[in-house]
């Protein structure tokens, strides 16, 4: 099968799955009885979005075009993993600091803020990775 068709199909599948799972997050929020449950829902959603990011980076890594990116002596998948790992550390620092500004680590507001921040930043990263995928697809038409 043409590699570009496969690449585009993988993108479509991941996007569709993302829409279905967004409903699950809302259902979780609606059913949450307290702050701890809300935090759990939000952390789970952030983890899900991160898996989606990871999946898209793996898709990029599987494309021979990206073997020339970053450190060519490493497998592309390792370069993508290093990139994501670095970002996760950055997200953790920022979100814990943001949560700290809310209540200096006291009470559930801090954890809730941290969770929401993690989710929002992960969604933004997903958009950024989508931008890379879109630019590659546009630049390399069939």
């Amino acid at each position, binding site marked *: 099968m043409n590699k570009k068709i496969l690449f585009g199909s993988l993108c479509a599948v991941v996007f569709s799955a993302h829409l279905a799972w967004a409903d699950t997050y809302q259902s979780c929020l609606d059913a949450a009885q307290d702050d701890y449950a809300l935090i759990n829902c939000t952390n789970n959603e952030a983890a899900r979005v991160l898996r989606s990011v990871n999946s898209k980076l793996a898709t990029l890594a599987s494309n021979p075009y990206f073997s020339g990116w970053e450190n060519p002596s490493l497998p592309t998948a390792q370069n993508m993993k290093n990139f994501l790992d670095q970002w996760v550390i*950055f997200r953790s620092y920022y979100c814990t*600091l943001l949560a700290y500004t809310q209540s200096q680590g006291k009470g559930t507001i801090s954890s809730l803020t941290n969770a929401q921040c993690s989710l929002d930043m992960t969604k933004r990263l997903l958009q950024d990775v989508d931008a890379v995928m879109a630019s590659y697809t546009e630049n390399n038409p069939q």
Partner: protein
Amino acid sequence: MNKSFLFSLALAAGLFSVGAFAQNQSLQLEEGFDFKKCQQKASLIGDDALAECMAKENLRVEKLIDYAYQSLANDEMFNAWNKGSGMFRGNLKNLYDDWRKYRDEYCSLYAFSMEGYLGTSYYNTQRCLLDLARQHYDYIKILQENKKSTPD
């Protein structure tokens, strides 16, 4: 109004207001650099000239980010989070360094995906660096605003 709701609004505004950032920014670079004027002149020359404008604007925004971090580092409230490591050291410095590494790698990836298509590599890299610098400055401003709204 609920703090979490306020935070979400502020973060969303920060995430999506990058395009409006330059127009709203009242501070000027010490050397009198005017990004808009630079872009107007450079648009008559080409992509690399535009990229030079973005590189200079990026320097200006990075200085703002530096000042914002130093302001946080000097704030007593953040000492405990920063592990009391003094001025621009400890967790704040780690946060800043980690952001820069992420930004450099992401922009390298983005420019790589655009190679041979729209704009030169230099142009695409500088545009990405500037976008993410503006975004990060908004993130840091949210911290400062959150701190002001935190009750004693």
